[in-house]
């Protein structure tokens, strides 16, 4: 396959960036999108040019690092996938592919396609945990949890913190991420104890980071590699509103 690329190049957060054109020939349709970038970077290094910086780690769809906004969509044209799990067979010979970093005030560009997603870490640090250390894992069936509830928590816990939800949202809202992190704890007995304070603190941090509000467009859930459901956003709304109306917290 022959592929034309338009890639966002930006030296660092201080300098303005721009789209740069590249051409690649003999791209195998079985390559992953990241492998295609490896080939590009190798060519660039041979030519003595600076390789394109991009985030990646596991390359098996579980770490959430591979943030790339490809042809107008986070992680490219397929749904329920990360960039590392996207293959060149999803494109056609002769295609032009536009690749940009996540765009959000809360995710500043560090270099080229790499953005700083520490805002997500700070949201977790604000309350996405159970604060009492209860020692090692309890025996199975020690705490009885109905199957349905366990599944609901597990669905939320699938979130890999990739930020595609923010990238896809017209408001750069982090509602789906925050909702997943709240849901996974709120529905379980261990997490339920602190559910009010958690909702209040995590939402406050989410707002402080400069993410937008939810317009319920549903783009996040469609683009989420783990297809996290909008049900969790409804739960977050309930949790937050309930906490504000009924908790003892200031």
């Amino acid at each position: 396959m022959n592929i034309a690329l338009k890639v966002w190049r930006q030296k660092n957060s201080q300098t303005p960036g721009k789209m740069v054109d590249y051409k690649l020939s003999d791209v195998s349709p079985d390559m992953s999108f990241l492998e295609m970038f490896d080939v590009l970077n190798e060519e660039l290094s041979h030519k003595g040019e600076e390789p394109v910086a991009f985030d990646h780690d596991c390359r098996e769809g579980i770490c959430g690092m591979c943030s790339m906004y490809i042809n107008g969509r986070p992680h490219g044209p397929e749904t329920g996938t990360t960039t590392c799990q996207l293959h060149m067979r999803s494109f056609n010979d002769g295609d032009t592919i536009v690749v940009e970093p996540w765009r959000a005030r809360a995710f500043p560009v560090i270099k080229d396609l790499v953005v700083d997603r520490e805002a997500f870490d700070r949201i977790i640090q604000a309350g996405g945990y159970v604060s009492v250390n209860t020692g090692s894992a309890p025996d199975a069936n020690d705490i009885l949890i109905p199957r349905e509830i366990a599944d609901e928590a597990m669905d939320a816990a699938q979130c890999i913190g990739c930020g595609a939800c923010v990238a896809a949202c017209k408001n750069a809202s982090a509602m789906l991420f925050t909702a997943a992190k709240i849901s996974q704890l709120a529905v379980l007995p261990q997490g339920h104890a602190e559910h009010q304070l958690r909702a209040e603190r995590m939402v406050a941090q989410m707002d402080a980071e400069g993410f937008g509000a939810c317009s319920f467009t549903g783009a996040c859930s469609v683009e989420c590699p783990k297809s996290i459901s909008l049900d969790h956003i409804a739960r977050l709304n309930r949790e937050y509103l309930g906490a504000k109306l009924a908790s003892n917290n200031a």
Partner: protein
Amino acid sequence: MSWVTTTLSSSLGRKVVMSLTGLFLCSFLIVHLVGNLQLFKGDEGQSFNEYSYFMTHNPVIKTISYLLYTSIIVHAVMALVLTRHNQASRPVKYAYQKPEANSHWTSRNMGILGTIILIFIVIHMRTFWYTMHFGPVVLNGETVTAGSIPEVTYDGEPIKNLYAVTTFAFSYLWYVVLYVVSMVALSFHLVHGFQSGFQTLGLRHKKYSPLIEFLGTYGFGVVIPALFAAMPVFIYLKVHHILF
């Protein structure tokens, strides 16, 4: 800050205000529609005039109407605050975007649709509410009445003939077109807005959400705007003896 101001200045709290005011406006639409359906009666406006008299003289309705005006203003102001906040959340735009791949056009353009509705509300209030309260008024360079709104007498009781004001306004084609276009905007606003309002309040459940979606799409998205749009069309055709 007290918990109230903290809540109302959070993104979620602001959306709750949008949702409550928006859903209240939706409930008003039903009442407004049922009353205005009297326009379709072939009694030269008697039912409509009596209904208008009731609506403008009942103290409970009058109180609710102030709540309504407040809701429109709060909804519009909050829409502006949220829209600006949301735009600021992405200072650098994407060079190339494909939003239609993951969301509906209506959900992404609530602000534009709402602005059309707001302009409509101002014109609508100018024509009917202002005329009713402060007539006489000049419409299209013609004075509607010399001294005040014309009156009609039913059972010896003289009341304002708002039916005459209505038929006069809808005798103009451009005015009818304006109404029909605005109702299309309302339809699109509510197809997304009605469902979204419930989501914002966290009211989502597999038993009820399909009903909410159905009501939002067909009730508020199709039937209600279509019936509202039919009124000016019907009167235009009637006044000009085109169909009736």
